[in-house]
């Protein structure tokens, strides 16, 4: 029986990058034994994101209010859980996660059978490396993650992730709304999930705006630090 893989594409105002991204995802050549479905989660976009998605053979989940990236990804994961998917992968709608790199995540999963496979920008110094301040922040979160999860995860802010059924079930139950990536790692690690990181090459954003802009980066640091501290001491929900 082929493994069912759901490609979750969270989108907020991504009309610029979606027309290029969706055909790539739909024509993706994956290793034998995978049956894929693409789910576009439209996080209440103000532009024509929903119309563009409708023209392609994808599942469209239209959120009635804007939930933020975490809420959008979680909606896709709940869909995966309800429909019995074995695997789910997050591919951002802005095109910074090249679909071809997905194969690397699947290969890493087949080799390690980890519950969560993270596509990392930093293990190999290749491709888009983002700005200095962003790297500084990522270095800080690397250290924080080591402190709270006991695991050496270099790129804890990467959203390019492959969830297995266990990780899907956990994330469907609780996934942070804003800036979910580092905090969710603490939760996964506490539940004893196996996390594996594999190098991928990421692209520059093809359009839209990043969810982390300069004037909010301090807030980002404080919020994520707090969330990680409390995620690590909170009793399991």
């Amino acid at each position, binding site marked *: 029986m082929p493994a069912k893989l759901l490609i979750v594409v969270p989108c907020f105002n991504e009309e610029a990058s979606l027309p290029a991204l969706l055909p790539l995802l739909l024509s993706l050549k994956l290793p034998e034994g995978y049956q894929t479905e693409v789910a576009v989660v439209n996080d209440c976009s103000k532009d024509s994101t929903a119309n563009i998605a409708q023209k392609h053979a994808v599942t469209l989940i239209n959120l009635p209010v804007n939930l933020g990236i975490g809420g959008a990804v979680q909606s896709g994961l709940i869909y995966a859980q*309800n429909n019995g998917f074995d695997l789910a992968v997050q591919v951002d709608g802005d095109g910074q996660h090249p679909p071809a790199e997905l194969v690397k995540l699947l290969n890493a999963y087949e080799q390690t059978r980890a519950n969560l496979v993270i596509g990392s920008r930093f293990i190999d110094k290749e491709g888009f490396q983002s700005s200095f301040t962003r790297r500084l922040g990522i270095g800080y979160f690397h250290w924080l993650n080591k402190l709270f999860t006991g695991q050496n995860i270099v790129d804890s802010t990467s959203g390019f992730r492959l969830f297995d059924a266990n990780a899907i079930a956990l994330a469907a139950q609780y996934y942070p709304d804003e800036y979910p990536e580092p905090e969710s790692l603490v939760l996964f690690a506490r539940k004893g999930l196996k996390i594996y990181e594999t190098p991928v090459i990421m692209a520059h954003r093809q359009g839209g705006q990043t969810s982390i802009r300069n004037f909010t980066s301090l807030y980002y640091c404080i919020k994520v630090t707090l969330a990680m501290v409390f995620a690590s001491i909170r009793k399991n929900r």
Partner: protein
Amino acid sequence: MARIQIITILVSFSFLFYIARLIIKGKLREEYSIVWLICTIILIIFSFWREGLDVMSNLFGVFVPANLVFTACIFVVLVYLLHLSVVSSKLQRQNKQLAQELALLKQQMNKADKNIDPKKTE
């Protein structure tokens, strides 16, 4: 009875009446009205009992009675604000769950529609 006493008693009672009206009309839920009712009742007690403030100040060891009033008020306001933050966090969580459920249901409905009538696109 001093003039200020009459004023505070009148104001307190009209406040109490207004809270009651809000509850009756269903604009204020009972669980959020408790704190308002308690505060108003305390105001009414101290409006009638003039020496009460001095007695309380002596009890707590506060030299200027007005300081006791301000401290108590600010404390109550802070606690109530925290309570409101808790309430809004809960509402946000429930709102998110509802939005997700609704989006997934709509997706299912659209899919069922398409299965019945393949020509329909929406």
